């Protein structure tokens, strides 16, 4: 297991490096000057450019870029959105609402999906299954911002239960969380439906498997057989859906944050691209990739934990 983990870790670091390099080259080669501020005198502009090594050839800049990140977590400075502020600090200031939003969507989606998928599989082709399958289709095919808008209309306007927008001046976590409830639900519907759909299929297959029959001929009750032999086995392929799910939540978050005026990372990424705040864009891209890679890493490890064939096979 250790070897397997280390190998996964190595692969993750290599991928991270490639992504960092790609983000750097793609963004920085875009035909937009880093400074285009008419209020700054050309001499000062040149001075600043020298300080940021912008006057040197691209590959030298690349060297400084990598060295800065690796040695002192220096991703450069924001030049347009928050002029002069360290990019790292900009990101840190934006992390909290985004993380709360994304994390709790996930925490909500996983058990909801598992419960719905299990009900659907056990009640196969009966009305609960049909109802769940119908909802699943809707939740998967309609993008989350539509649900965001609908929820916002229903529960802040028609029935004003929740605040319309994110409460930036909330004095407690509870209050902040309350203002994030609707976007969390909006973001969770799609992933919950994805899990439900996959789990239903997997469970139905394992429920018909020979080893489930064997479990019953041993003298286990149907419930014991399902819980011990069908459920855990079905989770193996479900782990795989986690990766697109988390990136999906983060993608949906870009728009949802706008609808509910959440000052998170998503809004920041879009803005930084629009105005051409290159250092910030690169850093945000790296941030998003890092999250995805860590997700993949965790999923890979949990695969190994669930399925001995991967864990032990990988050691040979």
């Amino acid at each position: 297991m250790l070897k397997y983990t280390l190998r996964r870790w190595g692969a993750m670091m290599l991928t991270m490096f490639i992504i960092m390099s790609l983000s750097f080259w793609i963004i920085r080669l875009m035909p937009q000057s880093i400074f285009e501020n008419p209020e700054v005198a050309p001499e000062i502009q040149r001075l600043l450019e020298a300080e940021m090594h912008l006057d040197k050839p691209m590959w030298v800049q690349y060297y400084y870029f990598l060295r800065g990140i690796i040695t002192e977590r220096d991703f450069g400075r924001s030049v347009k959105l928050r002029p002069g502020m360290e990019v790292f600090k900009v990101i840190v200031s934006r992390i909290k609402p985004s993380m709360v939003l994304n994390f709790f969507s996930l925490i909500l989606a996983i058990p909801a999906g598992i419960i719905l998928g299990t009900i659907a599989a056990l009640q196969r082709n009966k009305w609960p299954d049909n109802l769940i399958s119908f909802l699943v289709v809707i939740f998967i095919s309609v993008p989350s911002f539509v649900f965001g808008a609908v929820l916002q209309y229903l529960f802040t306007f028609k029935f004003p239960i929740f605040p319309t927008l994110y409460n930036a001046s909330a004095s407690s976590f509870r209050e902040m969380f309350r203002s994030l409830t609707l976007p969390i639900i909006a973001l969770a519907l799609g992933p919950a439906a994805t899990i439900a759909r996959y789990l239903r299929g997997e469970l139905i297959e394992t429920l018909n498997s020979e080893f489930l029959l064997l479990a019953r001929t041993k003298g286990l009750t149907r419930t014991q057989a399902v819980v011990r032999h069908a459920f855990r086995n079905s989770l193996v392929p479900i782990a795989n859906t986690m990766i697109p799910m988390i990136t999906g939540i983060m993608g949906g978050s870009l728009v949802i944050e706008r609808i509910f005026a959440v000052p998170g990372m998503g809004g920041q990424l879009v803005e930084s691209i629009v105005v051409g705040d290159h250092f910030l864009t690169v850093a945000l891209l790296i941030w998003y990739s890092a999250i995805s890679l860590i997700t993949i890493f965790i999923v890979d490890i949990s695969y190994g934990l669930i399925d001995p064939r991967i864990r032990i096979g990988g050691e040979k």
Partner: protein
Amino acid sequence: MAERDKRDVILQVKDLNVSFRTYGGIVRAVRGVTFDLRRGETVAIVGESGSGKSVTIKAIMGILPSNATIESGEILYGGMDLTKLTEEEFHNIRGKRIGLIFQDPLSALNPIMKVGNQIMEALILSQKMSKKAARQRALELMEAVGIPDVERRFNQYPFQFSGGMRQRIVIAIALAGDPEILICDEPTTALDVTVQARILELINKIKEERHLSVIFITHDLGVVATMADRVNVMYAGKIVETGTSEEVFFEPAHPYTWALLSSMPDLETKERLFSIPGTPPNMISPPPGDAFSVRNRYALRIDFEKEPPLFKITDTHYAATWLLHPKAPRVEMPEALKTRIERMRRRAVGNE
């Protein structure tokens, strides 16, 4: 049937009919199967793929899929009719009174659970044994079925075992609850020949040691010879011939049994193998009369029209073919088969 035998009957299947609801229509998979199992003996059920062998034993174990119905018939065991048991009542039968060995050890084990735990779990969950006692018993069972190095093997997963070793684990699982009846559904079909022989030996050995009564399912008559006391030949959901092993092997009466015997590979001679022409009938609308008639060289006109009853040959030997009717023309089994049987007979005598 002699009176003295009746007392020893431990399980009795009476006129069992099982059908499946499918999109294509009602599949009548088992049509009036009757046989009994006596204490300490091995009864074989032999037949081609699709003849309804597995469905019969699934009915006995109460594990028919949800689209199956037992239309009629009884399965008598320990004063109960198993066809009428509720799911709860069955938990005291499955594993504890009747154990089952599956056809394919590859898919019968849970791939992500340690084999030791798969043996132990029924002991812990349904027999309320302590974990320690269950572990001890599991290790003993693994030893009993011939697995070396049990302490280490206990903590391994199915994919780390060879096919033969996996089948031994499946056997250990079936024995865990200390059943008195063991049902083997083609236990060696998925294994290669050398392993096959050893598994059959093992089944015979544990049968003796544990005083089991065995129902042995196979499509290979060759396997039956070394295993069974009595043989039921099954075709298209019916038992077409039943008798002691000697009777079925040396004096077969049904043309289907002739065909099966003729198509049995014989390692000692190089004669060309006979294969049964045609395919088994569609069980959604089985043909009237004798279901085998369309593939039967010796079929009479009546075989296509009217279903033959079981004609008695001896007290223990019956066959369902109109050829046994007193007014039927005398039809002999093919010459090649006769010489074959003669050879088998000599070999059997030689072995004794």
